[in-house]
């Protein structure tokens, strides 16, 4: 019995030994509870967060996202962050529904769970979460206001105007030449 107890205790000791490396990691975000992302109905924006790892070993994370109305999605879900890296981008695409009500808010939450390796031991991994609200505002209040490219209609209008100027210039040159020729023969 004594032997059994000793063996059991030894086993428990082995089981619960963990890794010896320092794990240090985090996620930097440009928006938070008191600094929401402002978008108007129908707008789309890519928010970039940055994974950091100042620990001694490379770390791999699985990212999970949840959002009200499923307005946000991740382009990638697995991220490897080398030791000392502080700027591994995480792109979150946010698409606001066309029928979103001005004044409403959608919550976006992200969690990052370390994928740790280890055999024969219990390995303790790091995990951290961040979240930010997306507030629905008017076009003028949106973070995208003033940065939107011209619409397709504007492009065609510009092309039409340029074409018209070229044609008018060509016609004018032709008429001028004709006048010169008729004066010469008079």
């Amino acid at each position, binding site marked *: 019995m004594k032997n*059994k*107890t000793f*063996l*059991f*205790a030894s*086993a*428990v*000791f*082995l*089981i*619960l*030994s*963990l*890794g*010896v*490396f*320092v*794990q*240090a*990691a*985090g*996620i*930097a*975000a*440009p928006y*938070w509870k*008191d*600094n929401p992302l402002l978008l108007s109905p129908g707008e789309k924006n890519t928010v970039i967060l*940055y994974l*950091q*790892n*100042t*620990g001694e070993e490379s770390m791999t994370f699985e990212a999970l996202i949840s959002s009200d109305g499923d307005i946000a999605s991740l382009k990638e879900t697995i991220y490897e962050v080398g030791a000392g890296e*502080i*700027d591994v981008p995480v792109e979150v695409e946010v698409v606001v529904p066309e029928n979103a009500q001005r004044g409403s808010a959608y919550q976006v939450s992200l*969690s990052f*769970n*370390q994928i*740790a390796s*280890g*055999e*024969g*031991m*219990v*390995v*303790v*991994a*790091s*995990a*951290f*979460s*961040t979240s930010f609200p997306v507030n629905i505002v008017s076009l003028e209040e949106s973070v995208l206001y003033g940065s939107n490219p011209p619409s397709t209609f504007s492009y065609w209008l510009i092309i039409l105007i340029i074409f018209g100027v070229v044609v008018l210039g060509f016609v004018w040159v032709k008429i001028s030449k004709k006048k010169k020729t008729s004066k010469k023969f008079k």
Partner: protein
Amino acid sequence: MRRGKFLIVLFVAVALLVVPVTSANPFSDFWGRITGEASSGSTSLNITIGNSAPTIPYVQVITAKNPTEDSTTTITFNFTVTDSDGSSNINTSSGKAYFQKSVETTRSNLSCANYPAVGNSINFSCTIDMWYYDGNGAWTINVTASDINGADAENSSTTFTYNILTAMKMSPTSLSWTSVNLQDNDTGSNNDPVVINNTGNAESLGVNTTAYNLQGETTTTEYIYANNFTIGISSEGCSGTAMSNATAIAISSATLPNGNHSVNDGSTGQEQIYFCIKGVPPTISSQSYSSAAYGSWSVGVS
């Protein structure tokens, strides 16, 4: 004869008029006496030379910055000082810059470097370090300079955004129990607590743990279940929060504040958690048990 007399009279008259005016002699106040004009006197003279105070018309925009985990973020920017009295009137060693936010420690550079003058202006370049625990949000950029006559200029009209960083570091990363018998209850680890350091600036983070059943490595049908473990903020952790297999459980009363965890007082930017085995199933056999089958445990902050 008459002409000669005339010349003599003329000479004397001229002498009497010119000599007093041009020389300091007993006749020097003669003109003053006959005209009533003050002959001589002293007076004080006070001349004030004007000085225009310099101005700071331009402060470079600082884009939003991320904190750097457990370290500093270096921020460099420029500002322009202009003096209508000329750039040589600007005190080139007077450029100072401050980052200020309510409740936060002011970060500063009291000796910004200056560039060569351009017209009436001089550009200054300032570098300031922000710490990982400095609060997120809008920080005021306050820059000052003065001229060689001591007139000051200040500009505190601009701000920059310091982003939020949710980050942590924990130690030790190995736990041990000296001995666990089949009959033992409430056995705490002998090398805890696990100290969790807040290495970002997110405030009051909650701490959660996801535990998994430990499966026997020889007899795989035997387990030490996750709910045999409790985790808490006071020694030995045996009055703490019970774990549940594959479920993230918030550790009751565990809060990770932001702050300079290097103080290492157990509370500034730190939280401590203790692990306890409440007991083991009495029917299991002596062997190695591990999380290899179901995945590593995790300690998370949010």
